[in-house]
């Protein structure tokens, strides 16, 4: 049952898992006669054809949204193509100031929630992961099992009492209901991800530090944390994307426009606009997707590694 997924398409053959037999496949070019390779070339051409067609179809709506946001509004309803005659920036300037606050205000709110969530997850999940991966304690198996189960728990089961709790403390329309759960390691998925990673760090390193007189806080801070940077990076990136996109939590807890994060601001925008101002709506949608896209561009390696090793959305 050990479906060992540590061999990743992303990490290429050379990096990382040096000692393991990572790639069972023979080099592609080395077999077959000329006729065989010609047949294969045809097949590979066909594959490229399929992939380009499928990939184009996938990405087309996004490209079209970008192009449409740079067009006069009325063209959105009758121009399915991607060519641009002129650049129309008015959608961006109109959209930026269409709501109570300039759109930047909501981006700052989102940034606060995102940064807080990242810090919370990094600190609380790495601490829990260290205990699960390295320490022996009473009830470890039980707690570990519970932790794994909470990964699969639908959040609707807790949302009503959580809302009651936070509203009684007076935290509705503050960021605390979105941040406090992260500070308390409720994203158990990341605890699991980090446990997996710490298990791969040689125990000899801990032992050496212990012989030198280091206690657990020191081993954790000086030995384990520096070595688990890739897992921390994966956590950071996923927390960024999930928190930036989080709609449900913000919808429930943030009802005051001053406190809106980007997703709820966009929702308010959709509701307030008549069906004719798609241009500025598109423009702000693209602004809202831009941070995620940038994270995707620069953090892809960690994203793919994170998904492949632990299998998440």
């Amino acid at each position, binding site marked *: 049952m*050990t*479906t060992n*997924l540590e*061999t990743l*398409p992303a990490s290429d053959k050379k990096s990382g898992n040096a000692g393991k037999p990572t790639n*069972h*496949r*023979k080099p592609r070019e080395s077999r077959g006669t000329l006729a065989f390779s010609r047949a294969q070339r045809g097949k590979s051409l066909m*594959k*490229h054809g399929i*992939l380009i067609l499928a*990939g184009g179809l*996938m990405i087309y*709506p996004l490209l079209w949204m970008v192009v449409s946001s740079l067009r006069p509004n009325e063209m*959105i309803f*009758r*121009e*399915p193509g991607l060519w641009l005659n002129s650049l129309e920036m008015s959608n961006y300037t109109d959209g930026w100031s269409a709501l109570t606050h300039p759109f930047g205000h909501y981006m700052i709110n989102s940034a606060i929630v995102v940064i807080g969530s990242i810090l919370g997850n990094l600190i*609380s999940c790495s*601490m829990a992961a260290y*205990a699960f991966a390295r*320490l*022996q*304690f*009473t009830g*470890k198996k039980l*707690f570990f*099992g*519970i*932790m*794994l189960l909470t990964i*699969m728990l*639908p959040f*609707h*089961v*807790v*949302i*009503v*009492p959580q809302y*009651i709790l936070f*509203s009684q403390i007076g935290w509705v329309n503050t960021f605390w209901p979105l941040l406090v*759960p992260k*500070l308390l390691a409720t994203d158990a998925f990341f605890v*699991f991800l980090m446990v*997996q990673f710490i298990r791969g760090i040689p125990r000899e390193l801990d032992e050496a530090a212990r012989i030198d007189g280091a206690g*657990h806080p020191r081993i*954790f801070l000086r030995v384990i944390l520096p070595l688990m940077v890739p897992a921390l990076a994966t956590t950071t990136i996923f927390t960024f994307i999930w928190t930036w*996109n989080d*709609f449900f939590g913000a919808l429930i807890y943030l009802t005051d426009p001053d406190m809106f994060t980007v997703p709820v601001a966009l929702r308010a925008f*959709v509701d307030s606009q008549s069906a004719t101002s798609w241009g500025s709506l598109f423009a702000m*949608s693209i602004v*809202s*997707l831009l941070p*995620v*896209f940038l994270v*995707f561009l620069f953090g892809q390696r960690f994203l793919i590694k994170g*998904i*492949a090793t*632990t*299998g998440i959305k």
Partner: protein
Amino acid sequence: MSAISELSTLSRRKGKATAEEKKANGRDNKAAYIFLLPWLVGLVAITIGPMLMSLYLSFTDYNLLQPPEWTGLDNFTRMLTDARLHNSLGVTFTYVFIGVPLQLAVALLIALVLDKGLRGLPFYRSVFYLPSLLGGSVAVAILWKQIFGTTGLVNQVLAMFGIQGPGWISDPSTALGSIILLHVWTFGAPMIIFLAGLRQIPHMYYEAARVDGATTLQQFWRITMPMLSPIIFFNLVLQIIGSFQSFTQAFIVSGGNGGPSDSTMFFTLYLYQKGFGQFDMGYASAMAWFLLVIIGVFTAINFIASKYWVFYDD
């Protein structure tokens, strides 16, 4: 190794301590609980406490203003006769049981095409993966609302061929379909997991099969599918659990009301309306527990069925 396989090992190995655990017979209870403190507080205050609380509330009538009033099984008997709730279950089941298999089939198909040492693999992989990062956002839901609108992109393209398309999201018979399509569009994440799984299948199996004269199709059904079955299972379990909880896309595309005529009224959307629209917190809690039971039952069925089709190579 996935959380799911970890859980099943945990239950299989019950009682038996591993060698590692025997060796380290010294326990660090104090240090361990200090490290676990944030997680433990979260478990009690954010997860288990609220779970029990919502179980209690599900037997009460509660609107946030007056204290909860015990009503016994009232909420549950109400659920039996709530036609909108039954409809929302139907919508959610349709979404889950069409959307998830369709998405996984596309993910597997593209992963198979991508797998065989193709040039430009990282580029293709990125293109297919990107939508699954953006798919959960409000922005993409807005885009979808336009694309499948009466004058949207899809109908503009159809018009080029002289076809007058319907208003996909304003027509009750196609609205849910366009949201299912959005789910299929995010097949990139399971595709990456499939790619990683395909890499794990030893090449010698295929070579041996080829020597024996197996066709490509035979190789697929006799080698690829059995070897990949644990990963298909893993994806299936996670995607089903996740899809039962889908909310944002239906909310944005329908403007928050699950329309037209409740055709996109997901269970979670109805729960939101009951709990946070009408502040019928008791009923919403009962619905939430019902959802937990549904998800639990389907996950259990999945695990039981897995004995008959999932192949473990160890």
